[in-house]
């Protein structure tokens, strides 16, 4: 059956009731704050806050499980890469060195490296729930409206929304094309040699691209016929007016950002250092 990707489901929670723009602003500031800080204390507090929100939103794990697994795989790869390319990053950052055990050659596990990578991991898990929350609690139609509200041209904002709208159609086209191609003997499974497989893939992608181009032509004609792009501004059927909750949320994220940044930099460094 079809995998459930990051699709909005119409639940009722305080998070669903917020306007998309407020959530977008919250998410952007949140992500920036987390990116800036390496302070373990503020990261831990923020993670706790994010987990509470996830709970409040009533979103179910199965709605985002697939994407979560995907992220976790990249997450693991990323950590492996950090260690492979710079096994003593933590040592140079924290200025001390406590060896735990050697692996081979220059690969020695140190307390500093473990702590550094723990912090990187913490940053990930603090941002991911917020990204998921934003995607899953914002109606796709309101998504474009909120992009527009934070200052992005509505043409671009609507392009994003149209892309979301047509993903399932393109998926269906792909399925049809792939089926018909397979029946003629165009094999894209692992049984085929790689070079051959790539060539066969192109055989499927070409009709897919051509159909998609035709689709785009129809959509643009339909949109122009209905006055899209006529004025500098446009209104949104689904845009939500700001309520006191939205202002509250924005003030909250500014406070969180300020406190976190203050805690982080009060000792003159981005890094919380337990080794000194």
């Amino acid at each position, binding site marked *: *059956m079809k995998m459930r990707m990051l699709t909005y489901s*119409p639940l009722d929670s305080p998070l669903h009731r917020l306007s998309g723009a407020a959530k977008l602003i919250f998410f952007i500031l949140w992500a920036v704050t987390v990116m800036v800080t390496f302070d373990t204390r503020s990261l831990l507090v923020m993670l706790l806050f994010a987990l509470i929100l996830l709970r409040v939103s009533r979103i179910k794990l199965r709605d985002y499980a697939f994407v979560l697994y995907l992220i976790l795989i990249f997450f693991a790869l990323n950590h492996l890469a950090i260690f492979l390319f710079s096994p003593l990053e933590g040592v140079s950052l924290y200025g001390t060195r406590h060896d735990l055990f050697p692996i081979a050659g220059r690969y020695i596990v140190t307390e500093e490296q473990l702590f550094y990578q723990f912090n990187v991991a913490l940053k990930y898990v603090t941002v991911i729930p917020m990204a998921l929350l934003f995607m899953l609690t914002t*109606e*796709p*139609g309101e998504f474009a409206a909120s992009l527009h509200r934070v200052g992005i041209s509505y043409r671009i904002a609507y392009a994003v*929304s*149209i892309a*979301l*709208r047509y993903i*399932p*159609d393109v998926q269906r*086209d792909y399925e*049809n*094309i792939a*089926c*018909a*191609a*397979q*029946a*003629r*003997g*165009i*094999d894209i499974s692992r049984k085929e040699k790689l070079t051959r497989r790539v060539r066969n893939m*192109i*055989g*499927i992608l*070409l*009709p897919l691209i*051509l*159909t998609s181009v*035709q*689709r785009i032509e*129809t*959509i*643009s*004609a*339909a*949109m*122009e*016929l*209905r*006055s*899209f*792009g*006529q*004025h500098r*501004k*446009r*209104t*949104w*059927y*689904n*845009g939500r*007016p700001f309520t006191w909750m939205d202002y509250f949320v924005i003030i909250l994220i500014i406070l969180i950002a300020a406190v976190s940044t203050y805690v982080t930099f009060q000792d003159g460094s981005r890094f919380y250092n337990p080794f000194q």
Partner: protein
Amino acid sequence: MREPMIEFIDFTFQYRAQAEPTLRNITLTIREGEKVLILGPSGSGKSTLAHCINGLAPHFYPGTMQGTAKLKGRDMSSLSLYERSTYIGTVLQDPDGQFVGMTVAEDIAFKLENENVPQHEMVPRVAEAARGVGMEHLLSASPHALSGGQKQRTTLAGILVSEADVLLFDEPLANLDPQAGKQAIELIDRIHRETGRTILIVEHRLEDVLHRHVDRIVVMAEGRIIADTTPDDLLCSNILRETGIREPLYLTALRYAGCAITPAMKPSDLPNLELSTCLPSLRAWYDVSSAAAAAAERPAVLELQNIDFRYEPGGPSILNQVSLRVGQGELVSVVGHNGAGKSTLSKLICGFLKPSAGRMLYKGEDLANATIKERAGRIGFVLQSPNHMISKTLLYEEVALGLNLRGMPDTEIKERVHETLRICGLYPFRSWPISALSYGQKKRVTIASILVLQPEVIILDEPTAGQDYRHYNEMMEFLLSLTVNGVSIIVITHDMHLMMEYAQRTIVLSEGEVLADRAPADVLTDIRLIEAASLKETSIYTLAQRAGIEQPEEFVRRFIAYDRRERNV
């Protein structure tokens, strides 16, 4: 006399990419509040005329124009696409492609949003427009949850929500099943009566449009207007035959019976058709005609036995105990509404999906262990859109592809491809690039590329969708010639003409079950099956009822048999 809404005087239009004008010397006046059908076969220029009215030509499809074109007395060339859209609302042909919103409500609101209408004003207007087309209970539905007819109604509401004086429908029936098409025509008529707006319908399906009254019919052929007259006068003339437009079936029946059709009979209006002068000859024709005898059973090529399918164990059942058989050289049609399991069935037969239970036999041999590739040598599958199948630029390469992938020696490939191209009437084009071919020819290329693998069964998804009478005939005669050579054909279709004129049997699928497997005449006269399959009653049946024939079903059977004999099917 009402004010002219749209006026063309000696108007000529030429697309930038074309060597010759697509519209020539068009002179036409459409008055306020009129309901006009613009009729013509493919390539007659009727779509271009629609584009010149709504402004897509030349604003979206560039070209040059000569002569006069006026909209409410203003020169059209001085109006931008946007200004025109305030007068003219357009419903395009593809219900899916023009659905730009994430939900029904947003799609209806789209024009209002672009015109900066404030939200508090927008919401009640959208709700009202949705009520006008019967979509008020689906405001938050996403396009993927809607049928083609519902999508089209949404688009229509998106136009009604603004104050456009003219509603332009560009082939509104092309992508709808007969039932949805009938509802669309009824809805358009209701809007015309209730709002008095000017209505323009561009179509080639005359009978379906005439389900409701139109004031005038403008017939186009080869870029010119060749008739501009009332429906009754048109139906009594020779123009339809000359331009390749199918006349309403009930008139064909009257002609077979030897009745003279005159404008006084009101031939465009079947429920009020004046039949008294025709009754004796109609009855006499009925009495001497006979229905076709039941066809002898042919050896089975493909047999499905109690096929069940569900995507996951314990999940909802998609197909339930489906059994059917297809004989050598048979042409079988499969009908059913959206989601009845038609496409799942074809995917199972081709091996893209595996049945949860049941057996599938090809000439008595179980197909369970055959791979997709192996099956393809026995059962071919042709998608509705040729663009989904064509992946090479040259015709020869496209047809040879399947053989190349099977590692056949080049000399043998050449022989087989050439032979297939001859059968498909494509031999003269063998060295052409595919992009230079017409839609119907492309469709034929996709069939050739399947046929070259020498399957004995071909499944076609809507082979005649969106094609005019001439292309329909060409396609069906071609498929018929394949069955004469022993190829069995399964068509998944909503095309009632195809069923009546060519199919030996019609299999009705409903909710994943075979509801009926009978002669097309039986299906098309059974109201329960008609509804289950989203079809509509054939006008032959209505005619028989109007003529007081005791057994209208038998009348339909005799008509089909007579008609097939006439056309040597």
